[in-house]
């Protein structure tokens, strides 16, 4: 088998650096301007610029255009024939919170109790996770990590993926509150033959419980505003910014009925709502668009969850959301498989998205949903110099070759545990 060129170049790089992931050194702060030249620049907001240059200064994009002049002392990198994209953003996953799923000691995703609005994901983010570099290697520069759990799961944090600690990885500490919406399905599973009425009763009970938490939290917020609280309730205190509309409420919900219920709750308390999951979002795309509810669609490869649904229902969902004007991003809501989100976006192209729309779903839309669109998510002057280079179309397996990445102007090492093991065992002598 032939090794491709980027891999060979990587192997050369690996040969000079020690072959352990925790020795992959985060990129150093940008000290000199970097001019990337002659690339096909996919800006994500301003179309595609052919044979264009992009200048990075002090961690920001300083200029973009054709035939930019290299400033004094600038490093010039030719990207002739290559594609330049904003560093990709993966929303809603557990990257850095789990190392090995089956080993409990390495899993910091789920807290006990129903009410954890006061926990923040970033605390457990392991900047040295072996998984993170493998996700970076496929073009991802940011990830929104959230705690899993029962009802009020906790707050997500937006992390950049090349860091020494969770502190310098943090882009935004508390992005939004994530809640797991109670089930609305009345279908019992294979080993539990409960009748629809019983299921519906249980569902209603769980919904009421969740609503009660909001009543309590709102009571606390109102009393707090009036100066009447007699102490701090850490849980409800954390929800005040959500009630004030300063942070969105991320509702993890797939079923149409869940989404409807969540929209009612958001309307009642005037909350900024984002749906995470969204398997049925296409069924009410117009309503979501009208109410400005964004969707983090986590099933770009989804297999139908209902008997009678078409095989391609999930594949077509991004295009249907796009058509209705729903703001959406793509995710796989896992950890190691986050590296495949880019191909999920690629598949969505074959089911009706344009390349630009697919790119937006893993860049600018995601930045908007995470509340950081003023800083990242597109290639625009003044924004963070977070860019990724692919030798070809980044969305297709046949052309995807991520050969360089900068985050805030820092050049990122694209080595990872997978490549290191490959390198090591390529050298095993024949028996």
């Amino acid at each position, binding site marked *: *088998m*032939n*090794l*491709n060129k980027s*891999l060979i170049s990587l192997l050369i790089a690996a040969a000079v650096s020690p072959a352990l992931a925790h020795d992959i050194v985060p990129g150093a702060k940008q000290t000199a301007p970097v001019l990337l030249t002659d690339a096909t620049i996919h800006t994500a907001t301003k179309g595609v610029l052919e044979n264009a240059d992009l200048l990075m200064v002090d961690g920001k994009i300083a200029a973009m255009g054709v035939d930019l002049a290299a400033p004094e002392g600038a490093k010039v990198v030719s990207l002739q024939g290559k594609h330049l994209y904003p560093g990709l953003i993966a929303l809603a996953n557990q990257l850095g919170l789990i*190392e*090995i*799923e*089956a*080993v409990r000691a390495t899993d910091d995703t789920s807290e006990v109790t129903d009410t954890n609005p006061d926990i923040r994901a970033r605390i457990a983010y392991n900047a040295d996770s*072996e*998984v993170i570099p493998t996700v970076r290697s496929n073009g991802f520069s940011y990830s929104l990590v959230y705690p899993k759990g029962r009802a009020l799961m906790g707050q997500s944090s937006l992390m950049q993926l090349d860091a020494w600690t969770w502190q310098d990885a943090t882009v935004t500490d508390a992005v939004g509150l994530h809640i797991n919406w109670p089930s*609305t*399905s*009345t279908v*019992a599973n*294979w*080993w*539990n*033959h409960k009748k*629809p*009425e019983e299921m*519906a009763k249980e569902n209603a009970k769980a919904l009421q419980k969740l609503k009660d938490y909001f009543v309590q939290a709102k009571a606390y917020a109102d009393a707090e505003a009036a100066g009447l609280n007699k102490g701090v309730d850490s849980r409800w205190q954390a929800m005040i910014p959500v009630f004030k509309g300063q942070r969105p409420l991320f509702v993890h919900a797939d*079923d*149409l*009925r869940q989404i*409807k219920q969540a929209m009612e709750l958001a309307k009642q308390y005037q909350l900024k709502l984002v749906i995470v999951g969204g398997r049925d979002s296409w069924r009410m795309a117009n309503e979501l668009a009208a109410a400005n509810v964004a969707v983090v669609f986590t099933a770009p*490869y*989804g*297999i*139908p969850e*209902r*008997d*009678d649904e*078409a*095989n*391609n229902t999930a594949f077509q969902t991004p295009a249907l959301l796009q058509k209705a004007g729903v703001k959406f991003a793509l995710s796989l809501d896992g950890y*190691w498989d986050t590296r*495949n989100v880019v*191909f999920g976006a*690629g*598949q969505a*192209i*074959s089911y009706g998205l344009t390349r630009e729309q697919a790119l937006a779903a893993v860049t600018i839309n995601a930045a908007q949903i995470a509340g950081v669109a003023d800083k990242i998510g597109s290639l625009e002057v003044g924004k963070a110099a977070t860019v990724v280079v692919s030798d070809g179309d980044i*969305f*297709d*397996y*046949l052309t*995807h*070759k991520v050969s360089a990445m900068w985050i805030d102007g820092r050049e990122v090492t694209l080595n990872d*545990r*997978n*490549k290191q*093991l*490959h390198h090591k*065992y*390529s050298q*095993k002598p*024949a*028996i």
Partner: protein
Amino acid sequence: MNSFRLSVLSAAMVLSIAPVAADQTRPLQGIRDKTPNLLAFVNATVHTEPGKKIDNATVLVEDGRITAVSTAAAPAGYRRIDASGHHIYAGFIDAYSGYGVEKAPEAKAFSFGDDPVYQNERKGGNASNAAIHAERQWAHDFVPVADDAKGYTEQGFTVVQSARQDGIFRGQAVVASLGKGLPGELILKAEGAHFMAFDKGSSKQSYPSSLMGSIALIRQTLSDANWYRDAYGKQDTLISQQPVEFNAALAALAKLPQAGLVFETTDDRAVLRVDSLLKEFNLQNAVLLGSGFEYSRVNEIKNTGRSFIMPVAYPEAPAVASIDDQLDVNLAQLRHWERAPANLAAMANAGIPFALTTHALEKKDQFWPNLRKAVSHGLAADKALAALTTVPAAMLGLPEQLGKVAPGYQADLVIAKGDLFKDGEIVATWIRGQEHQFKPLQQPQFAGLYNLNLQGQALKLELTGEGSKLEGKLINGDKNVALKNLSQNDNKLQFTADLTEAAAGSGVLQVSATLDGALLSAQLLLPSGSRQQQMLSKESVPAKASDNKADSDTQLLSKVTYPNRAFGLDAPLTRKNVHIKNATVWTSDKAGKLENTDVIVKDGKFSAIGQNLSTPSGYQVIDATGMHLTAGIIDEHSHIAIEMGVNEGSDAVTSEVQIGDVLDPDDINIYRGLAGGTTTAQLLHGSANPIGGQAQIIQLRWGVTPEGLKFKDAPPSIKFALGENVKQANWGEAFTSRYPQTRIGVETIIRDAFQAAKEYKAAWAAYDNLSRSEKKVTAPPRKDYRLQTLVEILDKQRFVHTHSYVASEILMLIDLADEVGFKVHTFTHILEGYKVADEMKKHGASASTFADWWAYKMEVQDAIPSNTCLMADRGVLVSVNSDSPDLQRRLNQEAAKSVKYCGMSQEEALKMVTINPAIQLNIQDKVGSVTEGKQADFVLWNANPLSVYAQAQQTWIDGVPYYDINRDAQLQQQVLAEKQQLMQKVLGASDAARKGSGGTHKTNEPIWHCEDNGDWLKARFSGGQHLHSHAAL
């Protein structure tokens, strides 16, 4: 005869007289009872047997037996029972019952993480598995229970075949009369059929934990019964070196062919499964308990040639009242709700013999409304009657005693007012001359229009109906009021009427009347308190309102498709000869990738591949310009289309279980796989044990039978597993006792199993070499399916695919295989294969791996997505598999990942999902490449098949177009339209039609994974148990 009569009488008098309790073997205490039992039922319409009827007939009964049926007058000396206006049928027989036998203790419902139980406590000669109760003869435990009997007799049943419905081998049923009396006298046949099922019931033993395990246990046990018959008592043995154990269960089963059996099925697939299992043992004397799903595979079921005992329980209508909750409703359930009442008609029309049972009904009184519903859906009344009488009588081997109203037959008579199959009502059931009356035979006829004079006002009293349905009104000119407080007792009637409402006075009129012929002798109590006596004469009898409104419910809107669910096909697909023009053909053979190439498919084979071929006449032409044609995708590792458990995860070695026994051709994942271009898959047992079950290679033919899925003549294979799963590392705290718990133990147990197989083979060889006279005194070795399978591996007739991850265990198995003398054919998963690729190559093993999975458990921490390239570079044959119905829809993309991660050439990458897995499955001479002469399994793609942008447009197997993206779009619309129609029907149906009566819907299998352990058998059946909890016994 005397004592028989005595028992009849004693029962009839409900044992209220102390001295008459007597039996045939105990001396009588007190005075003998010599009351005669001479009965004459006169003026009846007698249905002597299905299709034969005598009007105005007389039936004579003497001492519990019918002596004459004729139109002659009743002789003197007989008790005369006037049955005018009544129909008499032979007593009904329920051949599937638990009557009179104590129920098994409630089985603990399934829950995850239950403690495993590996052994059954041995007592006397019980079986080694706790789900086997074959030695039980339920006649020994039979006790009549009056309350339970009433549930049956009210519906006209007089005889049952009964056993405890618990376990796989449930023991031998008793045939008993539902009359009253001593148990021994009620038993008509002590050695009835053996009851059987796949459900292990109350057994706590872990084995079997899957349907395939249950089937394997039945197979081993039936084989053991034959062995026991030949071996027990012989002193010379070849394996155990000790005499054959006493085993009552096996001794009982040795007589199974004579006793016969009744096997419980839960759906149409189970019927086919039971049939082929019984055929393996040439068991013809068998009847199947049906499920109500037979209509969906009626031809295949007809072809089994089996007879059935059919419940008439119907499923509840899916809940469609809430618009949003309609999301939870699926087409298959809507169809089944509509079709269930038409099932019996479909079976009868197909010529499938069946009897009827009350089994599965929530309440026994649902029997007649449901059966009439079946009749209104096209079941002939004669067929229904036969299914209650002559057919079950023959099944029980008592056709000369039961099932007819004829001289010599048992005097079991059902007396119904009206035709029972239209709107008749059972008023009495006589069992062996004992009366069980529920309603008076002759109701006083109050109905009529009477003149009533109330203080000078001429009013009319109108009475309609009879018995409990009697009602009436008081009429004053154009005003009328309904009668209230109406009650009737024999020929006495009472009611009140509101005179104010009738404008005939003020206050309430009270009436008490006695019917005497056509005259009503009435006593009136006026509101004032004054009393009057009047004789009211009947002026006329109002015409009965016709109930004959057309039953539009019997018009069926639903389709029956192949399979019968959404995306099923209207008819099975057939082969086509086709000329595909101008495609880019990826041959996956030496010819490489061919541009602008034509492919001609003839009789299911690629007959020509070349440029500008001419179209043979009669061939369909597909213009594939701009399209890519590849061989059908082949998946080395899949768990789709498997029913009730992918693991027999109880014992550490389960090589006796067969995935091929539990194929589910109705699994929607077959269709979804086709939509992704997959045509062939190896269905592997899971990874719960070092030596797992036998695999089954299938072709994804949508709409066929379980047998039709099998890849014809594919060499057999088996799953082994190593590492975390088999040492139960992630199973929870209850699972720390089974050997092995370490990788060290895994090696040892595999070695020991093969050693046992070698000794087993040697024992058989020694036995086969004995002379005829030596064989006479020597117990033959016991056929052991578990070891037999390992012998096949040693004999190179079965290929090993082993679940494996880390380098150490890969090397271990290679060394062990070399030592023991077998070959590891394919390492599957093999995520660290790149570390020991040379060693694998040297052993001759191939590798089938995931494209990029890692990090999900400890043993995949070193997995890398360039594993494919590194192994291939060292000469190992590599494929990429799915192990998931999701990935099976895009194995082309999974293969493409090797282009991305390690620069594999596109053609080589495609081979990882076509010819390479074909070689691993030993079917490369038939499929895996687009080569002249090979089977026409191919996919048409709209783009380079390795591109993320490619979608399968058509998927063909053996020249049959199983998937077409345009047909799929049509099917999507048809599914929506049919569902809408059926939901409309549910919404318009009566509450009664919506409410179920104990019938079930099919539930989907979960998506099975390698590591799915658990007692799936228990989960399925115990989960469903509460559905039947209201059924009497």
